């Protein structure tokens, strides 16, 4: 372990010994501030709901988590598409980083959804179209990460992953539309183009939730991308050293 005292934000002033930079440090501070504002409004200042009383507060983390998990899936699909098209390693790593963060947010969505369902619906889980398709999305993301974990030639592994990555988009679309296409226990969206079915401080709390969770998402994807990048460099350097050593010793068969 290092002796640096900087927190999980990473220290940009100590040189590039971490995945942190000046930009991510500032982003991290802003993110922490936004998360504080979210706690203040979501848990303290916003009112209880008429039917659900305080359980409504789960929405302020559940809905933004779900939205950002979709964003992560789209980012993974874009990265996968660009990789398949141009063989860009940079975009492959973007896909990888966002898939992992998307999986985290999908897990948040499922867990907070269950914790919201119990006090409001009376059950943690029901196999309606929304919940089922969301569970499928989680499995697909885990599948993506599993494919990346299978040892293979770089190109082969990235190509396999990219194909799974592209499938995330139709799955997200099914999740999103499930409440419109089929009869579900899950309610339809509160925020839509036709207006919001929520007002005042509750709307503002949801808004702060979107801001804070979006900033957290960006911070996490950047850092995860840098970790993936460093892993690539370690692999490459390891190989270089091996070849150099072998050359120095003379070829052994």
């Amino acid at each position, binding site marked *: 372990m290092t002796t640096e005292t900087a927190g999980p934000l990473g220290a940009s002033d100590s040189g590039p010994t971490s995945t942190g930079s000046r930009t991510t440090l500032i982003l991290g501070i802003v993110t922490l501030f936004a998360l504080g504002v979210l706690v203040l409004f979501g848990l303290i200042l916003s009112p209880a709901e008429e039917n659900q009383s305080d359980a409504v507060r789960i929405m302020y*983390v559940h809905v933004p988590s779900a939205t950002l998990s979709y964003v992560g899936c789209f980012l993974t699909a874009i990265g996968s598409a660009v990789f398949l098209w141009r063989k860009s390693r940079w975009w492959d790593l973007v896909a990888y980083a966002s898939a992992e963060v998307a999986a985290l947010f999908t897990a948040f969505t499922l867990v907070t959804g269950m914790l919201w369902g119990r*006090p409001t619906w009376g059950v943690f889980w029901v196999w309606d179209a929304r919940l089922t398709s969301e569970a499928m999305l989680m499995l697909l993301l885990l599948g993506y990460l599993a494919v990346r974990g299978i040892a293979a030639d770089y190109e082969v592994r990235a190509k396999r992953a990219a194909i799974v990555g592209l499938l995330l988009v139709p799955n997200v679309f099914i999740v999103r539309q499930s409440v419109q296409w089929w009869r579900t226990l899950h309610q339809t969206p509160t925020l839509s183009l036709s207006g919001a079915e929520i007002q005042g401080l509750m709307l503002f709390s949801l808004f702060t939730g979107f801001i804070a969770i979006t900033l957290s998402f960006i911070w996490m994807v950047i850092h995860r991308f840098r*970790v993936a990048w460093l892993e690539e460099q370690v692999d490459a350097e390891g190989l270089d050293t091996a070849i150099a050593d072998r050359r120095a010793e003379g070829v052994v068969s």
Partner: protein
Amino acid sequence: MSNSLILAEATGTWPYVAAAWAVVFGGMGAYAFATVVRGRRLSKKVSPEKRRWS
């Protein structure tokens, strides 16, 4: 419905709210920490010119 029942509901939902927020905040914190630790460990193995972030 009586007021007492509404109050009972109010206290009844807080554990779920606390658990949900703890999962999200705790999960993000743990992931952020783990990612940074991984990054620092890997940084030591990579030559400086290959890890310049902008």
